[in-house]
């Protein structure tokens, strides 16, 4: 068994080189498919991470209190809110604390805030909600309190973002299915050429009583080789593009969106697994399809 596997591997590699032209064509088309996939995958992963971060940022409800609301009233509200199931934690933030936090956020430019004559910020209650859906109930509750100036929460925004992400994912999936189908067809045709040129040999093998898998083996490996090589090439290119892109626009994105890009290391591992799995399955299915005609009987 061991010997025959090695033998089959050698045969597969040999075929690949004999068919250089067509093998290259297949490799190109799979690589192209994977590049598109890779770019979208990186995009989606980043989008997902950004979404998660956004959700975390936005699953808080901020309640601004009127000047007239005293500390005791606020403490009662906090207690009431903390009693709710939907609330993870509600806490009172005095205007002084808020200003300090603001200064910290502004970092080096924080000194600008020094010039303020009086603190423009209101006292507030910050409520962490367990789920986005729970936010509605919390808001309803807060509306029953008196002494509220304003309620700020982002349920609509986050929901919109989620639905956009979903559409992008679905669109990518549809495109992927199409691209994978195209690659399978190209690989199928490549291997068909080899199969046809060895039709006589296959026929003899069948007459002598070779099992279908024995006959299929070398062709299957040829397909798998094509897929594997494509996966490695595509992986290299996508990682390179991604790290270049990160160097180029990573800083800007962090500045604008406030969320860093997913590091190459994390992305690369997943990308490698996806590409290798995809390459192998495209190559293998291509070769199995191309041999169907010969292995009917």
């Amino acid at each position, binding site marked *: 068994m061991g010997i025959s596997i090695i033998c089959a591997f050698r045969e597969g590699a040999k075929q690949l080189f004999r068919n250089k032209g067509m093998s290259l064509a297949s490799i190109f088309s799979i690589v192209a498919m994977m590049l598109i996939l890779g770019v979208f995958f990186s995009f989606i992963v980043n989008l997902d991470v950004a979404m998660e971060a956004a959700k975390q940022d936005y699953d808080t409800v901020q309640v601004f209190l009127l000047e007239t609301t005293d500390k005791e009233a606020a403490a009662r509200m906090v207690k009431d809110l903390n009693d709710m199931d939907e609330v993870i934690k509600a806490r009172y933030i005095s205007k002084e604390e808020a200003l300090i936090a603001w200064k910290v956020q502004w970092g080096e430019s924080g000194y600008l805030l020094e010039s303020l004559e009086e603190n423009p910020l209101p006292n507030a209650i910050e409520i962490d909600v367990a789920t986005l859906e729970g936010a509605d109930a919390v808001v309803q509750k807060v509306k029953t309190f008196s002494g509220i100036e304003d309620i700020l929460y982002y349920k609509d925004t986050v929901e919109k973002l989620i639905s956009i992400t979903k559409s992008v994912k679905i669109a990518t999936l549809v495109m992927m299915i199409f691209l994978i189908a195209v690659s399978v067809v190209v690989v199928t045709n490549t291997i068909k050429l080899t199969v046809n040129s060895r039709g006589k040999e296959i026929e003899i093998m069948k007459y002598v*009583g*070779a099992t279908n898998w024995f006959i299929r083996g070398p062709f299957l490996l040829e397909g798998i080789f094509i897929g594997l090589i494509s996966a490695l090439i595509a992986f290299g290119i996508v990682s390179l593009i991604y790290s270049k892109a990160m160097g180029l626009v990573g800083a800007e994105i962090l500045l604008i969106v406030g969320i860093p890009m997913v590091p190459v290391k994390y992305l690369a591992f997943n990308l490698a697994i996806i590409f290798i799995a995809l390459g192998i399955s495209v190559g293998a299915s291509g070769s199995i399809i191309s041999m169907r005609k010969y292995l009917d009987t």
Partner: protein
Amino acid sequence: MIEFENVTKYYKEQVGLENVSVSIKMGDFVFLVGPSGAGKSTFVKLMLKELEADSGVIRFGDMEVGNLSNREIPLLRRGIGIVFQDFRLLPKKTAFENVAFAMEIVRSTKRTIKRQVPQVLDLVGIPDKGDKYPHELSAGEQQRVAVARAIVNNPTVLIADEPTGNLDPDTAWGIMRVLERINNRGTTVIMVTHAKEIVDRMNKRVIAIENGHIIRDDVGSYGYKESQKCVPEEGAFGNYGD
């Protein structure tokens, strides 16, 4: 024992075989004769399960051919060696390699291959041609390689489909002697042929098929009138392998 029991096979509009019953004992030497399109190839293809019978039962030893799953077909074919009119050798392999190829397929070890191939080449009368490529061999020698390949895995039955069709009479007799030698070792030989002289001189059992029916089954001569149309099978001429 090979047995056909009321076997019928139709092609779209044509009759392949119709209600054919015949049995061939192990160790027999049988000629299958008849005009082109009579049903001889259908007979062979049904035995190899290259075609499926429409009705009837085909038995090969204790296997019922019709009931074999696709996975079992290779096992059936390992029990049957086959030789074609056009040799069908692989042009890029030597005689030795062509024969060894059949053994590799059934996963024989290298040692067995090294031991057995020369024996078989010796049996078919070309012990010294192992390292020659098909194009370096005469037509008769090529057919001997094909015969060696067919029997190297010790099948119980050897089917020879017009094995002498591309050979001149002397060479053809050489092949017949090889087939006879193989038959004497206990292998059943079924030979499909048009060669009247050979059939007449061999004096073996003759099964004559015409229009999908067995019209005669006895020992002796070809007995098939030449006045009836006798067109050589397709590719009978000038197809000396690659």
